[in-house]
């Protein structure tokens, strides 16, 4: 990882994916849902970036926007998505289809709704490699069996002609992963890949994603609401709140030295099995803001114990507090003395 950081810093390594000021709205009959308000981040080759946030924070919509899967009434209002130098927002559908599934693989929370129930699993894996790589039927079958072994689907040969309903939840997720990595993508987007799975199966799938990432050298964008999952899999973490990234840093910095009040409150809210039992769970007062509201100031300010007059007037932008740690907040909570910090810049 240190080597990787050095390369990035020297500017030797270019980002694989750049998302800049992305904004996605859903226009409904009498309101507009601002699902993604402003999202900017990079993913470098081979790294695992975690996006964490609560429901409605815009994490999934950001991912769908990246791969052009936003359908009306949703639309990307502004911003850019660049993948290996190619603009993914203004690209033709045909060209996007060639990238999606080939250079960018993706897996979703519920494998059953993303597999075709009337096609065999083998057929669905071979379809991808036949379309994208132009393999013959025989070569595609061989590749599919190889992939089924790679994702540890037992008895690949005999299960090749089974249908999705004959597989358990964990096995279906493995099938989806096999399809996603079938063309050796440079980027795998995983949207809540383990949320529907049991704890022991979740551990298996995370283990598999970790192993595949190092074996195939692909980058992974993993989206989840579970801070624990992120801690085990990501190199860098983006914390989202109300459509914006509020903190973006290396995994250790986010978890051990959080600088945004929301990140720190979120971490404190999780009962940790490796800590003594607290009398009461830490809670964040209030609830997430209405996504149809226009952003005025910091969206977290009403729940924030550090909020300043300035937070109401101005939207805090992601700012570097150290070379690898970006935070969108006017207060430096690392100086927290228990009292709200004085307003340093009342202007």
């Amino acid at each position, binding site marked *: 990882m240190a080597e990787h950081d050095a390369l990035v810093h020297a500017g030797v390594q270019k980002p694989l994916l750049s998302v800049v000021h992305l904004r996605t709205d859903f226009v409904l009959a009498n309101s507009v849902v601002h699902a993604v308000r402003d999202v900017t981040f990079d993913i470098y080759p081979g790294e695992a970036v975690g996006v964490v946030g609560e429901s409605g924070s815009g994490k999934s919509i950001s991912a769908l926007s990246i791969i052009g899967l936003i359908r009306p009434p949703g639309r990307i209002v502004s911003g850019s998505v660049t993948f290996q130098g190619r603009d993914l927002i203004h690209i033709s559908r045909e060209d996007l289809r060639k990238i999606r599934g080939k250079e960018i693989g993706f897996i979703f929370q519920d494998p059953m709704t993303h597999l075709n129930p009337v096609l065999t699993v083998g057929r669905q894996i071979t379809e991808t490699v036949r379309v994208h790589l132009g393999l013959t039927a025989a070569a595609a079958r061989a590749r599919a069996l190889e992939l089924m072994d790679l994702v540890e689907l037992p008895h690949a040969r005999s299960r090749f002609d089974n249908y999705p309903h004959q597989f358990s939840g964990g096995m279906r997720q493995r099938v989806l992963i096999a399809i996603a990595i079938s063309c050796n993508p440079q980027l795998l987007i995983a949207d809540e890949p383990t949320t529907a799975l049991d*704890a022991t*199966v979740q551990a298996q799938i995370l283990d598999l994603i970790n192993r595949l990432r190092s074996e195939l050298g692909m980058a992974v964008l993993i989206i989840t609401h579970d801070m624990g999952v992120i*801690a085990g899999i990501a190199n860098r973490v983006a914390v989202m709140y109300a459509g914006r990234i509020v903190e973006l840093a290396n995994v250790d910095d986010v978890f051990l030295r959080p600088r945004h009040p929301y990140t720190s409150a979120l971490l404190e809210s999780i009962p940790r099995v490796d800590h003594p039992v607290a009398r009461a769970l830490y809670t964040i007062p209030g609830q997430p803001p209405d996504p149809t509201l226009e952003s005025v100031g910091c969206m977290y300010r009403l729940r924030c114990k550090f909020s300043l007059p300035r937070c109401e007037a101005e939207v805090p932008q992601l700012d570097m507090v150290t070379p690898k740690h970006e935070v969108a907040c006017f207060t430096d909570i690392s100086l927290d003395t228990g009292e709200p910090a004085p307003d340093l810049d009342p202007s």
Partner: protein
Amino acid sequence: MIPDRGVTGNKVEPLPILEVEDLHMHFPIRGGILRRTVGWIKAVDGVTFTIQPGQTLGLVGESGCGKTTLGHTILQLNRATSGSVRLGGTELTTLSQPMLRNTRRRMQVIFQDPLSSLHPRMTVGEILAEPLEIHGLAFGLTKVKRVHELLLMVNLSPSLVSRYPHELSGGQRQRVGVARALAVEPTLLVCDEAVSALDVSIRGQVVNLLSEIQSRLGIAYLFISHDLGIVRHISTRVAVMYLGKIVELADRDTLYTEAAHPYTQALLSAIPVPDPRVEKTRKRIILKGEIPSPAHPPTGCRFRTRCQYAQEICQMEEPLIRLVHPGHSVACHFAEQLIDHSGKAALLPT
């Protein structure tokens, strides 16, 4: 065979509020054109435990292990195949329907999804008044007063009485669910994945509310969840279920630090910890495969197909749940040897 009665050591505890003894709930599998019974799903297959007044028993296990069915069978939403459920000394499994209706006042349930368990066309006020009317507890002005009181008890503003469920946030809806359950003054509350659908920042509020209510009113909870972090926070004792059976039952701290059953150990080691240092250094027990079908459970020990310690005896002989220490029962032939390989090593940074 009853490892779990009211006596631990010399101390005599009060009578349990809930006693479940050798409870079975089997569902027939029908097949063929005559819809004959061709097999049985043994969703709950011989479960025994007790809950003391004002205490919480956490019930954990993976999907399909029978934890929800167990909750439903205790509530008499399913009629048990065999075994007994006693609430405050009254046997429920043999009660007639009208008698049962009276008893239902004393046990209530809150579900995972508050939106689908609240009537969409009833206002919050109507939802809370309905149980009061059905059980004849309050009418007229007293009813209105009681509804206000209930809303305040769950930290909701009484101004919400005229709102509909869809106008509320997820956390508010779940509070209404809690208030509705409390309306009839139960002694036992079954919480079936009650906070699982809520976001982290909201979940804590509801969990704290449940703890508060328990210490104020002395209600016992059966807290069913797959989230071992929350269960540890809220429970007095914890039972681990696998394929219809309780495989381990112990005091909260014992279970989380001295787990003896290999399944409990694996479950504990699979809890993601929000700390990259812990995640990098801890040893995780990755179980092979997935939970087998409850229609065809493995012979002998049901966990043996996924157990790293399985021996020949595990295939031949079913391990019965037995006391290995006061207050700690385990269903494993090798519990004594395994207790040293405890969850402590997997969880706590050394």
